[in-house]
């Protein structure tokens, strides 16, 4: 199929959980590869040594700035990709790698890690620890429609991806504190519970109907903030939830 897009997985300092999340689409991943994507680069799955030109780079992990090869690879990723997606919370926000203090065999001096957005411009954030297979699927289909779809499909894909593009411009820091700063302290929280459901470390409970985070447990993944309906919410997109999900389901039919 000549109208496939090209994509690859770039592995920075991450646990491979994001890549596993891609694979957790099971048969859906095969459909993606059959119909929409030529998978041109992937340390784990493809025998390609150097980062090639590609339409979409899915970057997992943060960048160890003490490691020349990592820095060179993330620079090349930017130069050779049309769209760079920060896949997972380490790439978006640093996440658990924020807490690294070095000392690990056999490169104990590798101690400083930054989200990829501190080194290169990023186009789309796909946060989560790990990112959910369903969000990866939605973003992949949307990215395909944006690059290869009809005008209507392009408009829909653009509207869908817009909040995730805006996130990539918002910054590289995330924490439970974002909920405090941007939602609760701003008088926007409605105590719905989405943050607590999203938290991968169960650090969020509710006090007086409002989320309370155990900040010592927080791994700075940004899931709570991004799952919140009052952090960002697009009526243009969510009001069409039924047709968008149908479009994606239809696209994913084998």
């Amino acid at each position, binding site marked *: 199929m000549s109208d496939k897009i090209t994509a690859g997985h770039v592995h920075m300092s991450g646990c491979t959980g994001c890549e596993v*999340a891609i694979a957790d689409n099971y048969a859906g991943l095969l459909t993606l590869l059959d119909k929409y994507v030529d998978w041109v680069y992937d340390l784990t799955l493809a025998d390609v040594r150097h980062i090639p030109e590609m339409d979409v780079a899915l970057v997992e992990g943060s960048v160890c700035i003490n490691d020349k090869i990592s820095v060179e690879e993330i620079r090349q990723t930017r130069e050779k990709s049309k769209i760079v997606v920060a896949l997972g919370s380490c790439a978006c926000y640093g996440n658990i790698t924020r807490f690294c203090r070095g000392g690990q065999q056999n490169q104990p001096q590798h101690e400083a890690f930054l989200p990829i957005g501190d080194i290169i411009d990023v186009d789309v954030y796909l946060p989560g620890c790990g990112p959910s297979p369903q969000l990866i699927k939605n973003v992949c289909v949307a990215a395909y429609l944006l690059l290869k779809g009809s005008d209507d499909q392009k408009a829909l894909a653009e509207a869908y991806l817009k909040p995730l593009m805006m996130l990539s411009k918002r910054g590289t820091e995330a924490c439970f504190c974002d909920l405090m700063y941007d939602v609760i302290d701003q008088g926007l929280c409605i105590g*719905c519970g989405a943050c607590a459901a999203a938290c991968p470390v169960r650090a969020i409970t509710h006090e007086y109907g409002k989320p309370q985070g155990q900040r010592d447990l927080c791994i700075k993944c940004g899931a709570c903030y991004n799952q919140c309906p009052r952090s960002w919410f697009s009526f243009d997109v969510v009001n069409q939830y039924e047709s968008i999900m149908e479009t994606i389901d239809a696209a994913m039919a084998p």
Partner: protein
Amino acid sequence: MVQDNFLGNYSSCVAARSTNRAILAGSQDGGIVTQLFAFALEEGIIDGAIVAGPGDEPWRPRPMVATSVAELYAARGTKYNISPNVSFIKEATRSYGLDRVGIVGTPCQMQAVRKGQLYPVGLRDVPDKIALAIGIFCMENFPYQSIVQLVEDHANTKLENVTKLDIGKGKFWVYTERGAVVQLPLKITHKYEQPGCHVCLDYVANLADISTGSVGTPDGWSTVFVRSKKGTDIWSKAMAAGCFETKPIEEVKPGIELVTKLATEKITKNRKTIEERSSFGVGKGLRNPYI
């Protein structure tokens, strides 16, 4: 499909009440939510439902995954304070192992559910498991401490003696087990509302599969909007099974006009609040979450 700026999209709107007397005995109005979930449970449409169950203190709800009709019954009635039902949406598919989840919630909670299905940042494997989302009409919600303030201070009634709370006909009603009824004008309750409600742009849960509330129909009945394909399918099955007695909404008083009026008032007022927030300080505004 009707498309309305204030009432959202819906395939039908009716006045309805459950045909099950046991449900009606403890329900807020027409027993729509309990009846729908009970039917969906028995038919295997859902494996369980996230509802506002009893909590540690009187009238303080706690989200609960109901997997039996008895558990649904324990959660009947409106509590008028916050139950973070969405916090259980992933747990329901994990610890409880549900493949088909029902959830009831306010309009903002339906927004959280749909955003979560489209953008499941921290909701792995949840999006495809939402089998029935029922929304309830909501003008505003209260923190639990506000309910304590209203019932125990303003209405001078111990919460543990209260059998029913209701907002209707312009008043906040407190019913006790001894038969006393206290009513508070809503101008007293307004200041105790949850602040986040004042930027809400949805009154009748436009994003639910089915939404329901008392406004628009006589006492003991509920107004029901059937919205999505899922909602339409489940509603028609429940109707065929004789779960509900219905009347055309055009034939009841005060009818859909009142729903439209209140929806318009809420959304217009809250749009103004959002606008005012943009110039809240001196050359500085408060956040607008809508993009």
